[in-house]
Structure formats: structure tokens, C-alpha cells
């Protein structure tokens, strides 16, 4: 019965739902996981890379993490072509603000602006919503380090740690238990990100080519956005596996026979 109302984005269902928006979110639930963690001295973004085909020619060095402006970076989950349109728009919005005001756009304003654009696609035009959720990591004078998440409905929220994409619910509940507010520095956040990603990703073993890691930090009044090189990701994964092995050995005392 509800199918009758699916055909247009601009129509509510009898139960008061917007099916197209929900279907978009469903699409994102099948996409590669992205998570973000706020530390006291920076922000970590981790993303699962799905396109690991050997035949792919590495043109872009980052598949899911995009720099938006001098002080902000985002990662996407969902339909890649939709994501490209949105990140391009985010970059345009940032530069327009910079042109007008001579300073970087405050994080929430950028997120809010794009979400207004996304919302328009749920109310008029007869076009489908964007099948993308985004995680935004940024710094501004007003509120310091911030992490935001937005979804196809045009809603957004500020987070201390969150996850989008495949298995995101499991990741969020893990983060809820393990994230320590006020006690997390960048290195703790990186370790936590690896721990959570290893549990939620499809692969049996974490390898650097399946995982993208980026950090946003501040030194000397300047923002530094770094996509971690393969070597560093390898080291972090190795550290994680060592810790896992150590914990496994502890919990299973050798049964002396």
C-alpha cells in the first residue's frame, strides 16, 4: 500500500514518512564505513576503501576523504558520484565565504549551508535526494575542533565520535563504550579508530590498502590536514594486532597439561 507514495520525493506517506529519504539512507547502509573521532588536540577520520581492484590506476590518492578548505576535511559514505557533486559544492561554498569575508568559513555554517541544499531535494524539484552521508572534521575560531555528520534528509548533528556506512550501528555502540571524553588525544583516537574499524569492516584482516586514515590538527595558528601515508597506517595496524594478541594471550591462560 505504501508503494503508491514512493514515486515522488515530495510526497509524505500516510504514516508521515519520506520514503525516498529513507531509501537513500538504506543505500548508504551498504557503503564503505567511515568513522570520525574528536580528540582534544585534533580529529581523526577513518574510511574503508572498497575499490581495491589491482587494475585500478591510482589517480586520486584518497578515495573517500576530501579536503574542503584550509580548515576542514570530510569523508563520504554512499553513492560516489553524488558525493563528488556535494564535495564540489562544499568547496564552492567555502570559497564564496572566503571571498566575502576574508576568512575561513566556520564549520557549522558550511555544514548547515549544504544541508539546506540537501533538504531542498526532499521538498521540491521532483529530484531524488543525494545518496550520501558525510562526516565533516574542522577547526574554527569560535568552537575549536568539531565533528559533524549529515545525511540525505538534510539533518546534521555535532558529534564527539560517530560512524556512517556499513555496520555503522555496531561501530557507534563500540565507540559509545570505548570513547573517553576529555582523555583522548590524537594517538588514542587513531588507535581507537583502528580498533573499531577492524571489528566493523568486512575484511578478515586489516590491510593499509583497505583503510584510509586522516588527521586534522593545529600547530602555530595553522591547520594541518594529513592523509596518513601507507607506511604509517601499516605501523598503526601492526600495533593494534600486537595489542590484540597480547590481550588474547592474557584472557586465555595456557592450560598446562
Amino acid at each position: 500500500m505504501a508503494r503508491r507514495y514512493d514515486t515522488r520525493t515530495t510526497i509524505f506517506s500516510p504514516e508521515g514518512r519520506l520514503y525516498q529519504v529513507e531509501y537513500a539512507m538504506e543505500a548508504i547502509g551498504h557503503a564503505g564505513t567511515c568513522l570520525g573521532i574528536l580528540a582534544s588536540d585534533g580529529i581523526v577520520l577513518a574510511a574503508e576503501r572498497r575499490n581495491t581492484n589491482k587494475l585500478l590506476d591510482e589517480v586520486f590518492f584518497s578515495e573517500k576523504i576530501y579536503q574542503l578548505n584550509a580548515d576542514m576535511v570530510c569523508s563520504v559514505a554512499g553513492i560516489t558520484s553524488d558525493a563528488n557533486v556535494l564535495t564540489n559544492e562544499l568547496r564552492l561554498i567555502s570559497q564564496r565565504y572566503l571571498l566575502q569575508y576574508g576568512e575561513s568559513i566556520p564549520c557549522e555554517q558550511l555544514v548547515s549551508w549544504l544541508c539546506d541544499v540537501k533538504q531542498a531535494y526532499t521538498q521540491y524539484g521532483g529530484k531524488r535526494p543525494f545518496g550520501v552521508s558525510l562526516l565533516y572534521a574542522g577547526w574554527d575560531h569560535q568552537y575549536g575542533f568539531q565533528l559533524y555528520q549529515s545525511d540525505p534528509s538534510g539533518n546534521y548533528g555535532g558529534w564527539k565520535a560517530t560512524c556512517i556506512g556499513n555496520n555503522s550501528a555496531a561501530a557507534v555502540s563500540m565507540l559509545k563504550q570505548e570513547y573517553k571524553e576529555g582523555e583522548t588525544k590524537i594517538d588514542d583516537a587513531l588507535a581507537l579508530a583502528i580498533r573499531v574499524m577492524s571489528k566493523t569492516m568486512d575484511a578478515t584482516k586489516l590491510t593499509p590498502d583497505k583503510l584510509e586514515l586522516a588527521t586534522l590538527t593545529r600547530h602555530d595558528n595553522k591547520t594541518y590536514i594529513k592523509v596518513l601515508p601507507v607506511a604509517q597506517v601499516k605501523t598503526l595496524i601492526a600495533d593494534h594486532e600486537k595489542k590484540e594478541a597480547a590481550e588474547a594471550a592474557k584472557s586465555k591462560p595456557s592450560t598446562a597439561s
Partner: protein
Amino acid sequence: MECVLGISCNDFVILASDMTNAHSILVNKQDEDKMFKLSDRLLMAVTGESGDTTQFAEYIEKNIQLYKMRNGYELSPPAAANFTRRNLADSLRSRSPYMVNFLLAGYSERTGPELYWMDYLASMIKTPFATHGYGGMFSIGIMDRYYRPDLTEEEAYDILKKCVAEIQKRLIINLPNFQVKVLDKNGIRALNVIKSQNLTA
């Protein structure tokens, strides 16, 4: 004909503007307020085409307020100055540009006090002291001579009095009254109007 003066020091910015409103040979009033309060920490003293001055100043003022309403915090002085200049620059190549020259004074915790000079061609400079108008040409030399970044409010006011005395002595047009306002961490305050009577001392 019109004149505005501005001095920015370590703790405050002080602006002075003449109070004469005239059309050709006729003086309409001698107590016109040419300063516009854009926000609690932004003050603009405007000269130029009658009508354009008010239109432009009020347009900027309302946009600054809108930003505050939308975002919950105010534009910093450099951002407000850039925004103002951008609007002026956009209007320059339109059908009818704004003919305004002004000084923009701002204060914020992060930047401290700042003074921006902008003219009708949308040039902008941030500077410790500045003037507009014929009267300004007499005054800028006096400011060069006496300016220090660590002036007190009284000392800065005295420098403005010297400038006004010179303007009233040497400028052919009579500008008897100058309004003075100070902007510091506590906001905007009006000081005593510099009148020609008070200066013959």
C-alpha cells in the same frame, strides 16, 4: 567638505566626524550624526553622496545583524571589513555605484582594536590612523607628528582637538562641530563634541 578622522591605539579606537549637513550653499543642520553603529563592537563614520551614505551604511548594518542572528556570534572586525569592501567593490561596476568614503572601527577579543580606511573605489587599508576629506589632509600631518600606539584616550582626544583646530583655522568651509566616539572592549561611548567655541582657549 565633509571630514572624518580616526585613531587606533592599543586599547581603543577613536573616531571623529564633522556634524555639518549641507546642500550646495545651504547648511541644513550642524548636529548631524555621521557615525553608524554596525554592532556593539563595530562603528562606521561615513562621508559621501547624500543618501548613498545612509543606504550603504544601513545595508551593511542589517547584514551584520543578520549574521549574528543566524549564527549566534558576531563577525570579527576583519571579516566585517572584508564583507563591506566586497559589497562596495561589487557595486562599483554596477549601474549606479555607491559614492561613499568611510572609516570602519572595530574591536574584538581576538584582534584587539582595528581601524580600516575605505574609499568609493573599494580600496581598503588597515591602519593606525586615517582621515577622509579636505579637513583630513590638514589632519594627517598632525597625526603623523603626535601618534603613538600607547596613547591614552585623553591624549588621543587631544590630538583630535589639534586636528579640528587646524581644520577650523585653515579650511575655507566652516565645520564648527565634530562628534567624537570611542570604541573599546566595553563597547561604544560618545565623548564631548569638539566645538569651535571650546577650542579658543
